[in-house]
């Protein structure tokens, strides 16, 4: 134990000295990938048969959006005996990013043979399948992702519902169900999901629900002028000019009630022109 302490103290001293030396080393501009790549290249020259180094440089190339070089390094790493599953994932990813979806699928399948429950890999598989237009399979993979994901983001729900519609362009029922699932998970007023819901309701001509959705936004918002205008536009589209007019008036009143500093922002000035134009077409 004494001995150990002695060593530890010596190490401490050494650390102090070397820490001092470190201060003299210029700190690299952060995010400077090319410097890191050059360093890896140097290391590779010294030990040209180290598959780890090729893999690591490949990752750097990939971050630097040099997919061909990344791929070459991955292939080299593999040929030197790298059987790590992470390499398979990276190869799938770089093939996916360079839009070679068939090869990407091959590697992600290899990966999933060993680790079939990895959510990240499943998501990539779903994205690859989506691009291969294998929507049924893509949907199945993404369903797994949605169910297993710890912390869902609105973007995940949007991607999922998008795949549902790719698989069957008329399946607004399931797409809307996915959105509702997301709303329950992330909060009932999550904006990007409520917007998507509006879009799907409109696309599937559920007029009554569309209007309810516009009213939801109108009631939910402090400033309602943009939503009144959007609702008016929709009412015009479904040939309800009288209701559209009322909505436009409500938009105008809402603008009237704004603080002066908002009345003169470019977005409100633009909105007022849009309201006038719509009024003209209605009357």
């Amino acid at each position, binding site marked *: 134990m004494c001995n150990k302490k002695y060593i530890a103290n010596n190490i401490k001293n050494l650390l102090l000295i070397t820490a001092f030396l470190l201060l003299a080393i210029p700190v690299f501009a952060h995010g400077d990938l090319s410097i890191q790549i050059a*360093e890896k290249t140097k290391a590779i020259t010294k030990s040209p048969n180290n598959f780890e180094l090729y893999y690591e440089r490949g990752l750097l190339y990939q971050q630097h959006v040099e997919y061909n070089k990344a791929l070459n390094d991955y292939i080299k790493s593999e040929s030197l005996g790298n059987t790590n599953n992470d390499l398979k994932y990276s190869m799938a990813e770089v093939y996916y990013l360079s839009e070679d979806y068939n090869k990407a699928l091959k590697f992600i399948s290899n990966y999933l043979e060993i680790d079939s429950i990895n*959510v990240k890999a499943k998501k990539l598989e779903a994205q690859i399948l989506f691009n291969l237009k294998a929507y049924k399979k893509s949907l199945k993979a993404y369903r797994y992702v949605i169910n297993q994901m710890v912390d869902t983001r609105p973007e995940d729900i949007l991607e999922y519902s998008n795949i549902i519609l790719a698989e069957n362009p008329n399946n607004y029922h399931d797409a809307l169900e996915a959105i509702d699932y997301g709303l329950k998970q992330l909060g009932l007023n999550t904006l990007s999901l409520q917007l998507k819901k509006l879009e799907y309701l409109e696309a599937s001509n559920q007029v009554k629900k569309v209007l309810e959705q516009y009213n939801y936004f109108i009631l939910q918002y402090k400033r309602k002028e943009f939503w009144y205008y959007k609702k008016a536009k929709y009412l015009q589209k479904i040939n309800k000019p009288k209701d559209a007019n009322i909505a436009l008036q409500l938009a105008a009143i809402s603008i009237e009630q704004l603080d002066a500093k908002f009345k003169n922002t470019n977005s409100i000035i633009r909105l007022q022109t849009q309201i006038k134009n719509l009024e003209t077409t209605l009357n």
Partner: protein
Amino acid sequence: MIKKTTLIIMLLFTAYSFSQTATTSLVSSTKPVKPTVLVERGPYLQSGTATRVIVKWRTNLATESVVNYGTELGALAMNKTSSNVTKEHEVTLSGLKANTKYYFNIGNKKGVLSESVTGDMYVITAPNIGTKQFVRAWILGDAGTGNNNQRAVRDAYYNYVATSPENTGKTDMMLFLGDNAYGSGKDDEYQKAFFDIYDNMLKKSVAWSCLGNHDGKSADSEKQSGPYYDIFTFPTKGQAGGIPSGTEAYYSFDYANIHFIILDSHHTNREIGGAMYNWAENDIQNTTQDWIVTLFHHPVYTKGSHDSDTEDRLIEMRENFMPMLEANGIDLVLNGHSHSYERSYFLNGHHGFSNTFNGDEMTKGGHTVGTNGHGNGKIDSDGAYQKTNEATEGAVYITTGSAGKISGGDLNHQAMFLSLNQLGSCVMEVADDGKGGQNLTVKFISENNEIEDYFTINKTGLAFNADDNKPEQNSSMVSYESHLKTLNITVNPNERLKKVKFYNSIGKLVKKSRKESISVSKLSKGLYVVEIITNINTYSESIKL
């Protein structure tokens, strides 16, 4: 040579930490002592509003969570307890009074584990949304080196705020611009470069942040978790004002009369029409606050250690987000990423490359705003940048990423009034201008206590809420007697009233009448469109009941 040394050091480090662990475990196995619960991190404050705040801390052993709090230091009469046994404590205090100082301490059911007898552990709740009062925010970009540079920058601000003649010692919030802990935002890196450095401030000022690329390295974007997301608790459901984003990656909050929009320029899709863009557009178009500030990591203008002419994230934020934010009245844009201080003129509509900037261009589409927009923005020289109810354009862009290190660069972006390769942090102060408006002033405080730059944006007509002074809404045809809850309709002498229809705020027909004097006592408060139909014409008026 250097490389070899580094490798040796790293090896030694590993050996050293192993031997340390070994020693510790030896001690505990030979001489068993009752383990003591220690606070290893925090307490720190999150997501503060006028009525609630989240207190977080970490203990070495799992235990219950207790926060004792009260408005008098010697008498913390209230407490919030969670019997859940955990090392990661997160307690929400709610039902608080606005603009009120609450002292607190933290502990478990056995007792207090961390307190400040001098009263330096407290939360001052936010004022009610919309309140006009002095606000001070400390702004830190790319701080997380954990070295003496970072400490010097910190101490310069501590010194500034302690000696500030106005609101001495008060920091309403800390705004972190990302890259809060190098190299990859891991938990131990956050300990060294965030908690160990700012612990004194974190226990009395709410910290907000956006995600930097280095934080993003350890944040698992697929599982949407990782140290950054674990450490911070941000409002995803609009708890602090603003529209619910459903994610901590981007969110908004209100403080006093300022609306803050926090964007993720690193992981999240930056396209127009993407989820973040749609959210931001709806969020900014729903605010009624006097000031709008946005923060995100990647700078829209920089020629520092990064280049906004060549790097995709920077270009996308500028081209996609700036036109929308500008059209909706943004006042201040805070970025980091380049480790320098670069501060713009008073800009609008400059979305191209640095060499397309023309400071004399003031017409639609850019680039500077107002007669002194190409000046220095200093009240005591070229004058404050000016915004009025009529002239709503103009924002200042600050790339301030030198709170932990400097990395040089050309530092010659044309849109910048000043570019400095200097360590420092910024302070934003919003205060009454004494003329019925407010000044938003930002100062850059260098690590050696100098104020190297400052500027002011002035807004007129913020003395009182305009809503309070709206005249009675009467038109030529409709007059409302609020005490009688009666609406009187007057039609032209040559016309005869046939019908009056009331449409509510969602355009639904809610009342019909044929009378000229109509009781509206049964209608709920809100906006109505009143349609007046005579034998000759149909008119419509609006009324707010």
